[in-house]
């Protein structure tokens, strides 16, 4: 049967999670790319590991614990950005590596956790997505979509030119915090499917791929969500048949789409230029090399 992969309940859960990740990760990622903070998701992913470890240690849901810790970490990052101008990068480094080391330590201290468990959070594991995970992921994903679509004009303005947005009277600090919190939530949404270490890739690569061929923010947004959903679904199904890690498969597929669209972009741009008749005339004038010295004006 063609859609045999839809039968096992764990695959149904995995596919629901995959679609939600494919939508949410690029949806918030586009704002991070726009404000040139493409690696912020990576930092949040590191911090979230402490939350996963805490979840195991306290025998609560790792997803909700990771969400709480990631949100706290993202808010701290935003505060560092406001106040710690000079040594901000070092403060962030402390936060990232402290979060990662904390996670490894906590999970080893717990009775239920093991390094094998940690690995499933680091790189994603489809077979371990539970019903309660799916519910948590769905609730969190709804929040992410609400923010990224509902406030798209305001988030666009803040991410495009923060100073200008402030002079527009927009609540820039609140919006920045909202972006940070939403990014943190997205990290935990994506954690079960692609894993904490590869979350950031799914926030950034679909956006980078889409913008190779787009001219507007709106189309970039839609196309990156389409690419995100396509690669998470394809990757999930591939990993079901081929027994390859889903996170790595998804990210490699996304990069393949990026490469393909980049290759497509050059002829497309040429075609567009021809169509609008604005083809730049090339320089045909030969500059005699001997005259170079005489023209070397010093002011």
């Amino acid at each position, binding site marked *: 049967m063609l859609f045999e992969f839809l039968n096992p309940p764990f695959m149904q859960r995995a596919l629901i999670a995959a679609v939600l990740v494919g939508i949410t990760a690029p949806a918030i990622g586009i704002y991070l*790319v*726009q404000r040139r903070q493409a690696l912020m998701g990576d930092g949040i992913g590191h911090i979230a590991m402490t939350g996963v470890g805490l979840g195991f240690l306290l025998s609560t849901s790792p997803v909700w614990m990771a969400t709480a810790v990631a949100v706290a970490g993202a808010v701290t990052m935003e505060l560092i950005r406001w106040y710690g101008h000079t040594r901000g990068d070092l403060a962030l480094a402390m936060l990232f590596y402290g979060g990662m080391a904390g996670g490894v330590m906590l999970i080893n201290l717990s009775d239920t956790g093991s390094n094998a468990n940690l690995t499933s959070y680091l790189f994603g594991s489809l077979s371990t997505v539970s019903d309660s995970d799916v519910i948590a992921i769905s609730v969190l994903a709804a929040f992410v979509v609400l923010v990224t679509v509902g406030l798209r004009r*305001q988030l666009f303005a803040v991410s495009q030119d923060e100073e200008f947005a402030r002079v*527009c*009277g927009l609540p820039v600090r609140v919006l920045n915090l909202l972006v940070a919190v939403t990014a943190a939530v997205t990290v935990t949404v994506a954690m079960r499917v692609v894993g904490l270490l590869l979350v950031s890739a799914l926030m950034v690569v679909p956006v980078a791929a889409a913008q190779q061929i787009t*001219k507007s923010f709106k189309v*970039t947004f839609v196309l990156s969500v389409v690419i995100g959903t396509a690669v998470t679904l394809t990757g999930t199904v591939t990993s079901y048949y081929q027994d390859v890690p889903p996170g790595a498969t998804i990210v490699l597929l996304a990069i393949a789409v990026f490469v393909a669209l980049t290759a497509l972009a050059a002829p497309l741009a040429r075609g567009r230029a021809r169509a609008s008749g604005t083809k730049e005339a090339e320089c045909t004038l030969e500059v005699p090399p001997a005259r170079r010295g005489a023209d070397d004006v010093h002011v």
Partner: protein
Amino acid sequence: MPERESTPREAAPRPAQEAVIALRGATATLGARPVLRGVDLTVRRGEVVALLGANGSGKSTAVRSVIGQVPLTGGSVELFGTELRRFRRWGRIGYVPQRTTAAGGVPATIREVVASGRLSRTGLRWPGKADRAAVERAIELVGLADRAKDSVSALSGGQHQRVLIARALASEPELLIMDEPMAGVDLASQEILASTLREQVALGTSVLLVLHELGPLEPLIDRAVVLRDGCVTHDGPPPEALGQHALPGHDHVHPHAAAEPVRTGLLT
């Protein structure tokens, strides 16, 4: 671009001498260095004021303190008669920051960037028909109507500046604050910018602009304020044009010149 009916400058309505910007005794520091040392700057309704000065004289800081982007260590700012801290009606102000590009990390069309300027009127609410019309008008004003759907990253330096000005005009402001709008702008774009500004001024818009030199905007300027080392050294009619290089605020800073600028201006 359609030439709009423009009333002569003298005939433009100029009701009271109400100050739209009042900066009094402003002091500000950057680290330990004092950048503003007691600056007074007033722009009255309908007035076009140029803020001139050498690099590092504090003109950008002065302008950014007016809109609350640089905290003052002393003195006061009032916008439209309201203390800056209590001022909320940002839609009355159109701000053109000092930028070389209007592009961000993700492609955006001219219309999308200009539309973000309308947020000072709409805030968190949904934009309506009037808001969209204002955005289209702003794009038309800078002569980019035929390129509204193009990506801003495909534009020239002068066109970027025109997009930034259209973004400021999208809120239909009563006061335009522009920080070096002519920097890196080709001659054709300078002319378009000057005529856009002329139309706005004819409609009664007040303008404060930071300029490096008066250039093609000179005929529009009512008053010039010259800063030097954080102090006002001139406040009155624009200095006589004695050729570009003699203007105050013109420093001979060339990429390959000595570190210390050679000051040649009238007032430097």
